[in-house]
């Protein structure tokens, strides 16, 4: 009887950590009410730089190695924004792709040299299989992303 109970508890334990939750809360609880459109941030990044925002949208990609970033589709076609978190502080599950997320975080700028930008584009092309024309990258570039503090995935 004791053995059966122990086995049941062990199975229950592993099931509990492998079960998908309806709404997954990651990191700090969301505090903002007003949602900022991703297209707005992409259009006027300097206005939002350093500010805490709440965005929502479809998760189109998740870091396959550590779950340390995800891409959220914009409300405008073909646009997206990257959510980057400190490794280990929040881990985005790979199964989250195709689900919707509400993410709160701080808008930040990432400045890349020409070499860094090319290396990043090459890496992205290798990973995604997409074709990237490296000759279009000329000089240093800046892209904007959100340093994620908390997220809800539905």
């Amino acid at each position, binding site marked *: 009887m004791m053995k059966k109970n122990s086995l049941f508890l062990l199975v229950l334990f*592993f099931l509990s*950590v*492998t079960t998908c939750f309806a709404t997954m809360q990651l990191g700090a609880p969301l505090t903002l009410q007003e949602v900022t459109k991703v297209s707005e941030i992409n259009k006027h990044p300097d206005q939002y730089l350093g500010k805490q925002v709440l965005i929502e949208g*479809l998760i*189109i990609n998740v870091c*396959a*190695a*550590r779950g340390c970033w995800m891409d959220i*589709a914009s409300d405008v*076609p*073909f646009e997206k924004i990257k959510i980057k978190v400190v490794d*280990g502080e929040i*881990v985005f599950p*790979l*199964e989250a*792709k*195709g*689900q*919707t997320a509400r993410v709160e975080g701080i808008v930040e700028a990432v400045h890349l040299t020409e070499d860094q930008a090319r290396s990043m584009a090459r890496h992205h092309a290798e*990973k*995604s*299989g*997409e074709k990237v024309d490296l000759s279009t990258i000329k000089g240093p570039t800046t892209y904007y992303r959100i340093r994620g503090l908390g997220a809800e995935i539905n």
Partner: protein
Amino acid sequence: MSWRKWNFVLHRDLGYLCIGLTLLYGISGLAVNHTSHAFNPSYTIETQKGQVSPLPSGKVPDMSYVNQCLAELSITAQFKNVAMLNPETIRIFVEGNTIDVIVATGETIKEKIERRPLLFGINYLHLNKGKGTWTWVADIYALAICLLALTGLFMIRSKGRRRALFLTTIGFLCPLLYLLLKPS
């Protein structure tokens, strides 16, 4: 009871208590130590190229095209969502799979994601993805293994003392030498 006896009892019982978690952290440690873009310790990721009918030129991809792609690829998993990544590519999300379709050519790249049995669970605990209560358990375990090491140190007897000190010194020197000699 002498302090040596107490030390022995504490070391023995802490050892028993820590066996499960030490194995869990050890196995998971081996796995997460080798995390890279080519190896995810918690998931298996398989990519497979395929082909579906291209979208006739001038047409905009819609749900009927998405359903057609899924049917041609014999994918019956539950549909989750679809996104237009760029004018050439749509990404279809179904349970456990992501399919990129280059609409002009019909080329597809299917990515299948599955949780690694057992490793997903133990990595979840090791990396403390759940936070909350598990943080306490992990903290207590960390203190317990520190105590286990210290009580082990006090178990050194005069017989075999040189061997014990030699091995203990190596244990301390390994990380110290690495830190001193590693390239900056």
